[in-house]
């Protein structure tokens, strides 16, 4: 049962070599073949009905050729040698017109990543498989989870007027090989479960949402109870029926552990991606070694947290995931890199390193610098004390999505569960509101940092590509941030 396909290489080495050679025949310094196969399954329940079960299958290859500062790219869903060679020729078009380049003969060294970040030794026990493969789990069992969650949400309160529940899983195999001789494969299994509730009261409709997503198989449901997720989502909608408008203006804001890691992802993480840095489109350009945040802040990007949503074994350029300290005690230490940016790295930082942050949504996309699991490391304060020491402010139990302009650092986030803090105590719930600020400014205003920790899954969109990420942080306080009042 340990054979999860890793023993059968997705494409034979001689074919891959031929394709790489074809990709470089018009010239160019680097060529890469990325092969991907993805199976997915989802089931959704809405309005008390299991509305849809969906199964999906995608496979294909993306081929890129790098010539100087130009990249050519083509992809195909047809993995025959003929189709791959054709894609290689299309990708190499970028090299035509760059004359005088010798083509390089490519030799490949096969290297199967031993589970990559999947950490086989820790998880493999006896004859059991590394993870429970979703297709071995009866569909009915997945549907039961939906029914269970629906029931739990509706039992949370009579005001719950609508519930939707979604289950999804995926299994993704990748193979990366390139003209530097790298050949690596990895496999990835993910499971996600979410509940969305609507509560109907005198104040109109309110919503509550909760999601759990891990880089695990069906054993995720040994670790979590779907009824818990369902009750959390329902509770969030119900509490807002009695919510009052959020005050507006600059206020202290306490973020509960795990509730607001996205703020650091958006407000700071994106600005530390080397592609933005190299184009001067980040507020953090040329600032390595400088104090860019409160001394309480240590920011880490860690793709090796393998079970978290942003984890993986190898990135989509074949480099192992790593743990990078980006900001340590407020001082900027490093940026995040992919292959292309890393090669250009010395120009900006004196370093030349892969941090394993080259990711892509699918074989149809070019890789670029992306975050993995990005989090603020815990501090020493008692979370309860942080609230107790806040005279008048806002306690955010859950932040929604956000957006940032990496060039200016300006960001905005929505709260989806928040409360007033008055005289050190949480008093009443608030309607959804926005927090708005400037990343570098807010980082300097962190004045308390808890010893607890939480990390949440999310989907990060950049340049039209979505990838799974994790965002985490301990309970912490921002001394002042602009709160956009609610209606």
């Amino acid at each position, binding site marked *: 049962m340990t054979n999860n396909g890793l023993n059968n290489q997705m494409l034979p080495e001689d074919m891959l070599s031929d394709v790489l050679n074809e990709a470089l025949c018009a010239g160019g310094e680097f060529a890469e073949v990325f092969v991907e196969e993805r199976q997915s399954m989802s*089931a959704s329940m809405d*309005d008390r009905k*299991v*509305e*849809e*079960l*969906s*199964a*999906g*299958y*995608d*496979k*294909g290859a993306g081929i890129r050729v790098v010539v100087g*500062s130009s*990249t*050519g*790219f*083509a*992809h*195909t*869903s*047809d993995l025959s040698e003929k189709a791959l060679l054709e894609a290689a020729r*299309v990708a190499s*078009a970028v090299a035509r017109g760059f004359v005088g380049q010798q083509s390089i003969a490519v030799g490949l060294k096969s290297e199967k990543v031993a589970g990559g970040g999947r950490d086989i030794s820790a998880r493999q026990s006896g004859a059991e498989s590394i993870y429970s493969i979703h297709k071995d789990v009866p*569909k009915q069992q997945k549907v039961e989870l939906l029914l269970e969650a629906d029931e739990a949400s509706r039992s949370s309160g009579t005001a719950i007027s609508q519930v939707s529940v979604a289950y999804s899983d995926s299994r993704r195999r990748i193979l990366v090989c390139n003209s530097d001789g790298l050949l690596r494969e990895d496999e990835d299994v993910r499971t996600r479960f979410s509940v969305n509730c*609507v509560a109907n009261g005198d104040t109109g*409709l*309110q*919503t509550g949402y909760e999601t759990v997503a891990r880089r695990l198989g069906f054993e995720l449901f040994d670790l979590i109870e779907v009824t818990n997720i369902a009750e959390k989502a329902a509770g969030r909608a119900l509490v807002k029926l009695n919510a009052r408008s959020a005050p*507006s*203006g600059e206020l202290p804001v306490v973020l509960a552990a795990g509730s607001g890691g996205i703020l650091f992802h958006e407000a700071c993480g994106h600005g530390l991606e080397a592609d*933005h840095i190299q*184009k*001067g*489109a980040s507020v953090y350009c040329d600032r390595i070694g400088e104090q860019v945040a409160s001394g309480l802040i240590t920011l880490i990007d860690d793709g090796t947290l393998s079970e978290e949503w942003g984890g993986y074994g190898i990135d989509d350029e074949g480099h192992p995931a790593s743990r990078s300290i980006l900001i340590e005690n407020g001082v900027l230490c490093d940026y995040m890199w992919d292959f292309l940016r890393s090669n250009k790295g010395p120009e900006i930082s004196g370093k030349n390193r892969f941090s394993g942050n080259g990711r892509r949504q699918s074989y149809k996309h*070019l890789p670029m610098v992306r975050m993995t699991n990005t989090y603020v490391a815990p501090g020493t304060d008692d979370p309860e004390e942080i609230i107790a020491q806040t005279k008048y402010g806002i306690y955010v139990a859950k*932040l*929604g*999505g956000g*957006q940032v302009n990496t*060039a*200016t650092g*300006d*960001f*905005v*986030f*929505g709260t*989806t569960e928040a409360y007033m803090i008055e005289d050190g105590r949480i008093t009443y719930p608030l*309607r*959804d*509101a*926005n927090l*708005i*600020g400037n990343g570098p400014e807010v980082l300097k205003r962190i004045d308390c940092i808890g010893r607890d920790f939480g990390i949440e899954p999310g989907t990060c969109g950049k340049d039209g590509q979505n990838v799974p990420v994790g965002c985490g942080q301990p309970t912490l306080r921002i001394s002042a941030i*602009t*709160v*956009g*009042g*609610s*209606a």
Partner: protein
Amino acid sequence: MDVRTADMVDIAAKVCGWAQQSCPQENEDVEVYALRSHETSVRVFEGEVEQLSSAFTGGVGIRVIKDGRLGFAYAGSLEEPILKSTLNQARDNANFSTQNEYVALPVADGVPPADLDSELCYPGLDEFSTGDKIALAIDLDQTVRKLDTRVVQVPATDYEDTKVEYAIVSSKGIASSGRHTFCDLSTYVLVRDDSGKGKGDMQTGVGFCLARHPKALQVDKAANDALERAVCLLGATKPSSGQLTVVFDPRVTSVILSVLAGMLSGEVAQKGRSPFQNHVGEKIAPGEISIVDDPTNSSSWGASIYDAEGLACRRNLLIDQGVLKGFYYDTYAGNLAGTTSTASAVRGGYATTPQAGCRAVLLEGGIRDLTGVMGLEGGKDATAESIFLDQADIFAKVAHGVFVRSITGVHSGVNPVSGDFSVGIEGLMIRNGELAEPIREATIASTIQKMLLGIVALGNDIEWLPGIAAGMTLAIGEMSISGL
């Protein structure tokens, strides 16, 4: 089957045929949606090609309805063995969903398809050379760099085009197909003020132009738009909190209309997730305002001959002179509501099932004067003939307000179920009828319901933008702004 040459109708019909041969049961219905696209994208940086990508993508989405149970499967491939296994997956999935009398495939409803093919598809796109596409992007990159000395970097200038072909064939007799082309040229510019009082301040702007054919792309429009949007914000500061009149840029209006359109989905309303659910026949907007979704309007980028279930697209009036006329539906939502599909099914590609959605939302004018409520009597007034004003005439009437150039955080800050609306803004203050200092790091808040009722002026600058709604300058009488 080669994805570059495959005919989508043939593929959809073939898979549908397999289903009927292998299981000619009367209680099973099958629908095959086949999609193929050919995309080229070019990114230019500092006058050189940074990325050049070209590829065909193809796939199918199969819906099987057996005894009122829906199963779905998709594959990003046109290979026969994969298509066969996808059909089997869809059939198997149907065993696990809840029996639902409202689940059905549509039958043709007699509405004739609009004759739009020549307007939506430019067949000559295939002959437009890659070199010419690169030249367009380089031209834009170079144009914007030379426009102004305050331009410090142009991190990305992109050319993209796509040709899409789709077919929907079902056991209910639907056999619809269509195609369209689309080209997009855009640039992202950074400007810095090294002189004035906001010394060292950096701002960004994005400009773009769209067309069905690359020769129709206007490089200067995209360049000027990007620059103007960035420069106008230099030296921006945080405004003070309060109540004021809000004038939205056409781009922002388009986003707000898209959110509103989502709240008028018949499925959303049927499931109790729209604040408008029990308000059909009621006044939800000023009597001067009508809102229509008309995918047969070939000026819109969402225009289409058929909806995602193969029915002919048609004009749907949603708000008629301020009164909520009705919702829009796909087949399932129509059945759920005891009515019929308004041919409003949309899909996000072959990998998703259809759902009700808009394609071409437009705010149309009504009959009466709306002005005189923003504090000033300046500028030209609306007339019985046209309530649409020049943007300048709208500003001239605003005593104290803000001209919102862009909004952020729509995904997190706008709740389409409650209608709560709270977003970050950048723009310019309006004082005594004139544009004043730039602002940033502020939010505005209201609800979609209040904003709709609070519309006080419409601009005549209608522009079809990417997405599902047209933009125009739009003024809301009063909203709250939070800053300092």
